[in-house]
């Protein structure tokens, strides 16, 4: 059992899936010999050959659309978009085809594809390299959207995504690609694609986050614990379909909810959680549902990007406001 990073967890899951099922093919820009700009696909081409690990031309529309054709033939394409800021040309194919192929053909053709892409800011990357626009994908019916926040969840959720018979967008939080190491057993065990992970139990407030923000949120929970506040921390993980059951049960217990995401506030996934609470939580909500999010403005260039991202103090402050509500 090795201690590995999140990005190594991705790599391990890819290798596992490829060795289990010869229909799995991995492709994208620079995923071959170069092993991906974040090294997520390192070693795969050497191990599985150039037919199954392919560098494509620089064509994002094609990267998205080709997967639909491959999947219709029973391949299990796992395509990479090099950064989330370059995923937009694939939306046409994701929305009009990938997510609809089964519906359109009454199940005659299906689309078991995965589109992987690095997600989020905080790594001082160039312009357009720090995006967290999961909303554009979450809103699409028929698509699953998944994001891990630990090496083990990266491994288990990616395996599940590749095995899933329907299209999945798999987001990878760059900021924690190498933040921490964790023991991950390469046992081929997948994680479920429709449940949240309760990372810490608590009684005073429910904190919900995903991706890199889970880290900030856990740190905020630590800070709150020092102040005597018991926070429950949930990693949403499968953003679509979202496990509102777990979230509602938690908020029913704590009475308070703060959602943390780096995506822009308006119609970030926090909106859906808030709206669900506004519908189903009125009898137990003891405080306003707070959203600590990126602003409704453009992600700044790296010198000031941290101002945009939710920080531990911003999370703590929101929790304090919720606690002080009366």
């Amino acid at each position: 059992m090795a201690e590995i990073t999140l990005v190594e967890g991705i790599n391990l899951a890819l290798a596992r899936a490829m060795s289990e099922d010869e229909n799995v093919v991995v492709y994208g820009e620079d995923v071959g010999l170069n092993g991906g700009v974040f090294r997520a696909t390192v070693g795969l081409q050497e191990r599985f050959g150039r037919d199954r690990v392919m560098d494509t031309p620089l064509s994002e529309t094609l990267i998205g659309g080709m997967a639909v054709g491959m999947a219709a033939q029973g391949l299990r394409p796992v395509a990479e978009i090099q950064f989330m800021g370059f995923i937009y040309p694939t939306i046409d194919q994701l929305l009009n085809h990938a997510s609809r192929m089964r519906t359109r053909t009454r199940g005659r053709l299906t689309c078991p594809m995965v589109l992987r892409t690095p997600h989020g800011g905080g790594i001082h990357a160039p312009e357009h390299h720090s995006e967290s626009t999961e909303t554009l994908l979450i809103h699409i019916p028929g698509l699953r959207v998944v994001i891990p926040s630990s090496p083990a969840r990266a491994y288990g959720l990616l395996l599940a995504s590749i095995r899933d018979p329907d299209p999945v967008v798999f987001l990878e939080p760059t900021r924690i690609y190498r933040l921490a190491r964790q023991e991950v057993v390469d046992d081929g065990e997948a994680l479920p694609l429709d449940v949240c992970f309760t990372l810490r139990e608590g009684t005073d407030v429910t904190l919900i986050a995903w991706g890199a923000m889970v880290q900030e949120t856990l740190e905020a929970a630590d800070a709150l614990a020092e102040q005597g506040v018991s926070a429950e921390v949930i990693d949403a993980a499968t953003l679509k379909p979202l496990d509102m059951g777990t979230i509602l049960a938690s908020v029913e217990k704590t009475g308070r909810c703060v959602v943390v995401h780096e995506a822009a506030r308006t119609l970030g996934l926090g909106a859906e959680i808030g709206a669900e609470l506004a519908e189903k939580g009125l009898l137990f909500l003891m405080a306003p549902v707070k959203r600590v999010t990126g602003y409704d403005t453009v992600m700044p260039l790296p010198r000031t990007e941290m101002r945009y991202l939710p920080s531990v103090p911003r999370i703590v402050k929101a929790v304090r406001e919720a606690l002080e509500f009366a």
Partner: protein
Amino acid sequence: MTTVAQFEVEFTRILDETGQLVGSLPDSLSDPQSLVPLYRLMVLTRAFDAKAISLQRTGQLGTYASSLGQEAIGTAVGTAMRADDVLAPTYREQAAQFARGVAMSDLLIYWGGDERGSDFEKCREDFPICVPIGTQCCHAVGAAYAFKIRKQPRVAVCMLGDGATSRGDFYEAMNIAGVWKLPVVFLVNNNQWAISVPRSAQSAAETLAQKSIAAGFEGLQVDGNDVFAVRWAIERAFERARSGDGPTLIEALTYRLHDHTTADSAARYRSEDEVEAMRQRDPLKRTRAYLESQGQWTDDDEKRLQEECAEEVEAAVNTYQASEMLGPEAMFDYLFESLPSQLVAQRDAAIADAAEAAEERADG
């Protein structure tokens, strides 16, 4: 200055407008009897189109796109394909789909607004009709890639219109097909119009065939109203594809004789004179003339064929009209292989609402 690359685009016609051979038939059509099924499919398609239009005009079908005048292309393509090849069609390739085994009733069901029309009984690996223009190009190369790495001698055929050649998808797909030498054929049905936009406003390229030069493989132009020329070109492309030589682009020159769809009025943007001139190049007329000249076809044959086609079409209409409406659960039951629990409440609500609505209709 040195010349580092040179290209030519060739145009091929085998059967001219008057029904005379001006080239030699492909080997696959050397038996005169083999020509009759081609003519038959063109006539059947035309009968189907006419019926569909009349259904639409009388409120019995949704918007419909006729292939009037372009039947030779789909006929040649569909009949040249092997059963295990894959077709990625537009909405205007009825003949190709019929040749593939798509039931006429399925196309009516589809245009009648019901997803089951894309659940073909045969050619189950063919893509459904593609409405977002050009997007099917990416699907075809994806399928072709699967054929290639599995070492299957199969070909993906991507059909598209002249308008579609302006989409980046077409170009990105061609480019990868070229560099990966994929077994795919891009067949451009150049019917001179993309709704109201004429071919001349779509691109300054002298031919659409030359667009493949950007992707490093051959493009050729054929008379798209000449079913023999299209067959010749596609067979050649298939041979290349099956022997590992990669993709081919074929531009088939034809003309959209009908409005773009039943929702369009072409009279707004083109002259009746132009259309009339193009009617002279009709693919059916010339094929029939040739068959007659070869002693393969008589007025009686024609009459019988017309009757047969009318009957077949009528049978399809009956099947279509007998199809019951989908239930409300159908919105949910094909979204995922198994419905996530999160959607069960929505499904239940939809079923309840539909039941209430039905009750109200019954009451009211």
